[in-house]
């Protein structure tokens, strides 16, 4: 059974993405190591949830499985689409 995809999501299920640094920088959201940046993956799930690192921000968080099989749960600021037909295509999600 496929779970409903949130209306707020700008990345699609199955969309290919790369891990990136927020632009402009958002130190309060955490960081990714230099060796991780650019790692490619596929969007598997999306949930809308609160993130207290950013005040009372509520927004989509994406489960991305990278090429090495690792799971990541990232806000859209850390993702860039690799799919040229995607409507998102930006890091702002």
């Amino acid at each position, binding site marked *: 059974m496929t779970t409903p995809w949130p209306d707020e999501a700008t990345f699609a299920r199955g969309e290919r993405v790369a891990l990136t640094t927020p632009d402009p920088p958002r130190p309060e959201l*955490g*960081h990714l190591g230099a060796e991780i940046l650019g790692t490619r993956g596929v969007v598997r799930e999306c949930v809308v949830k609160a993130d207290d690192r950013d005040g009372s921000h509520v927004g989509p968080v994406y489960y991305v*499985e990278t090429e090495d099989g690792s799971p990541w749960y990232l806000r859209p600021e850390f993702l860039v689409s690799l799919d040229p037909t995607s409507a998102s295509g930006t890091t702002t999600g």
Partner: protein
Amino acid sequence: MRLRAELHRVHLGRDEYRVITPAWQTDGTCLYASPDGWFMELQVDPQGAGDLATVCALAARSRHSLVHLPLRAGTGPSDPPEDRLDRLDLLLVHHSLGFPASRWKEVRARLGAGTPHTVDLPGTDLPAVEAVDHERRHFAGWRDELRFAGAAHTLVVTGSPTAFRWAGSQLHELAREASGGRPDAHHCLTLTHGGWGSGRPAKGVPGSLHVTCAPGRSVG
């Protein structure tokens, strides 16, 4: 790293599951938990710790299989835990499989006779413990962690390839230390659900697994 195993194929509804049961000497190994879910311990000898490290490497590569260790079938160690503790089997599940622990009881009931296989894994699958990049645990969104669940007298451990390889590396190091240590020395490590300080497993499932390795531990 070489492992003899039996491969089972189980049909459950529209789903088919591949279950790999490593054939190893488990009599020196015992996994148990307190009935109140307060703690959980795995007792192994150095051979068992090394074999378990190899099993973790196998789980890391088994994107489409469940890796099952029926530890309750063994006689257990010569210094068994108290009777009031529950002995458990162990099931390792690749996170990509999305296998719900609640299905394990039905899958196990359909195992039947398996097909013998020999599994060869590159020794490089398990990184040296000093090569594990612990800094990654502080990265935003990092989730390469083991997750614990319980079902049908079984500890179900779900993880990513990296999570299983890191656990395997720790177990391999534990085996190495214990095999060269004094028989009465205490060698141990702790594997945790969701990493230290983050997340809790389902009610009744301990959040950590204490692994003790004794070189003198023998069959009871």
